[in-house]
């Protein structure tokens, strides 16, 4: 049985037994290469669920939509490794109760998917430990290193050209599971911390604020990068910050629901090289 069949069946069981009230998965998209988030509430709709290599989106952000988990009922969700890490972070930041989440986990390879054993977010320590060993990812390392080797002026020019394209649609924020703030700092106007205009300065401000806010929290799911309608390589910023955090604090985000949040906790032996 394919993993798609296996998870359709599991979703149907979860729904008909009443164990979960909802399954968040992937449905067919407009074109064959697209998959879209799908919300399934009854067993007879589970045949609409898809699971294949086109299922790229990290769906965990939907878990913190307003009120979804307030009734304490469980929700089933299709999650790749990044999604599992996101749920861990959301739990460690008290945004959800991890035991309310029933995971149908999968690993995505180039052309196929394979099942991840387990259904609670605590069930994946070996997979997560292996991920940490690989970190930080491999795919984009060449580009990260290229930017790393630039002079500060070249690097500034590179990002200036990228941020100049930004139209402040906030797709990066809206698609990000970590951007759950009810009111984002850019939406405050008393005081106006960040300029809302999408000129290059305002765009720099926004993207830097977001980079800092995601440091030690981003799971590199690539959602912001894929969502960006003007193709700013946002993953590179977050990758760089993740490398920094790993290096300085040996912190790899989303290892468990009990993991301390790296920039909101203090240890006596934290490096303090940034204090002049």
């Amino acid at each position: 049985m394919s993993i798609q069949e296996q998870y359709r069946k599991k979703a149907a069981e979860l729904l008909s037994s009443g164990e979960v009230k909802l399954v968040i998965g992937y449905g067919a998209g407009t074109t064959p290469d697209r998959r879209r988030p799908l919300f399934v509430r009854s067993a007879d709709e589970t045949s609409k669920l898809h699971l294949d290599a086109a299922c790229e989106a990290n769906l965990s952000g939907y878990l913190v939509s307003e009120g979804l988990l307030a009734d304490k009922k469980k929700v089933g969700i299709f999650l790749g490794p990044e999604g599992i890490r996101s749920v861990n972070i959301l739990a460690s930041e008290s945004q959800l109760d991890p035991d309310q989440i029933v995971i149908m986990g999968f690993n995505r390879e180039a052309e196929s998917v394979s099942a991840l054993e387990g259904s609670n977010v605590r069930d994946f320590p070996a997979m997560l430990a292996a991920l940490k060993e690989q970190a930080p990812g491999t795919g984009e390392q060449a580009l990260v290193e290229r930017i790393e080797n630039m002079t500060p002026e070249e690097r500034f020019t590179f990002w200036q050209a990228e941020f100049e394209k930004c139209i402040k649609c906030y797709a990066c924020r809206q698609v990000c599971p970590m951007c759950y703030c009810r009111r984002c700092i850019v939406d405050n106007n008393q005081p106006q911390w960040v300029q809302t205009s999408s000129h290059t300065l305002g765009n720099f401000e926004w993207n830097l604020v977001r980079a800092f806010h995601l440091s030690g929290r981003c799971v590199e799911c690539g959602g912001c990068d894929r969502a960006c309608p003007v193709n700013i390589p946002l993953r590179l910023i977050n990758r760089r910050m993740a490398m920094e955090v790993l290096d300085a604090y040996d912190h790899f985000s989303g290892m468990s629901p009990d993991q301390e949040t790296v920039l909101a906790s203090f240890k006596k032996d934290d490096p303090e090289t940034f204090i002049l």
Partner: protein
Amino acid sequence: MIQILLRDKLDDCITRWHAAGYDVIGPQKNNNVTRFAPVEKASELDLEIILPDRTVKELFFPQTEPMFRYRIGKQTIDTEEYLPPGRKRIIFGSRPCDASAMAIDDPLFGWDYKDAYWFQRRNETVMVTIACTASDDFCMCTSLKLAPDSTLGSDIMLRPVAGGKGWHVELLSERGREAFDRIEALLDDSAAEKEPIANVPKRFDLDVCREWLADPENFESHFWKEISIRCIGCGTCTFLCPTCHCFDFQDEGDTYSGIRRKNWDSCSFALFTMHTSGHNPRSTQSSRWRQRIMHKFNYFPGKFSMNSCSGCGRCSRQCPVDMGITETLQEITKVAK
């Protein structure tokens, strides 16, 4: 008489237009995004794409533009206006959907009060549009009763000739006359077959949708919540929409001097309609998506006799969660029948 602009004369065209004082602007790929930018040579143009990632809208209504610089003194406030520069321009190679969208927004920006920023740019711009001979799964102009060769909003229409050698040239408006005259000598009158225009299938029944939307009963329909449940509330569809025209004013500076700007804004954002009191008439994402659809296919046509959509399909093509106008109107077509 059929007149053909041969592709290898395009550089001469641009040179002549430049000599006549026109800026020439066309679609170019830069930094992984295709958008309209000034061109010097034909080789910079990216004319083979279905349509650019970003629309021509931003050439008339930029994502951010300064309106005034203010300086506040003891007894005075000086305001210096930044109106558009007043340079003649030719936008070369926009698609009929984008060009139509500019004409669709004209009555809105002129509704009793004229928006000088919009009309100054409109008046100084000649739209040279290229009819589409290719489309993708998201194009939907025919569903909007437009076509891959609609002339709405265009001043000069180019229709590709078979073999990609060039284009049939048709002058459509007085505004385009000077630009046309400048290149007329370059045109070739040899007969050439036009390439058939793109076959864009009809994706939904607009009349059925409009009737359904106009029925007050359907305003509260559960449909809106179902269709928008995966909407994440970003501004991609509105900012990449050639007809979406909503904006915000923002002051940058301090209480002594600074700049008041006009910025794109989006009905997708929760803050868009939020009162200072905290009351928000459109407090849910489903009410915001409903507003967007209602505005385009019910309110706007009621006021200006046109749909506020030209069928470019960018909303669906670029949506991070694969939503869009097409899906919604397809579903309405289904439920209405």
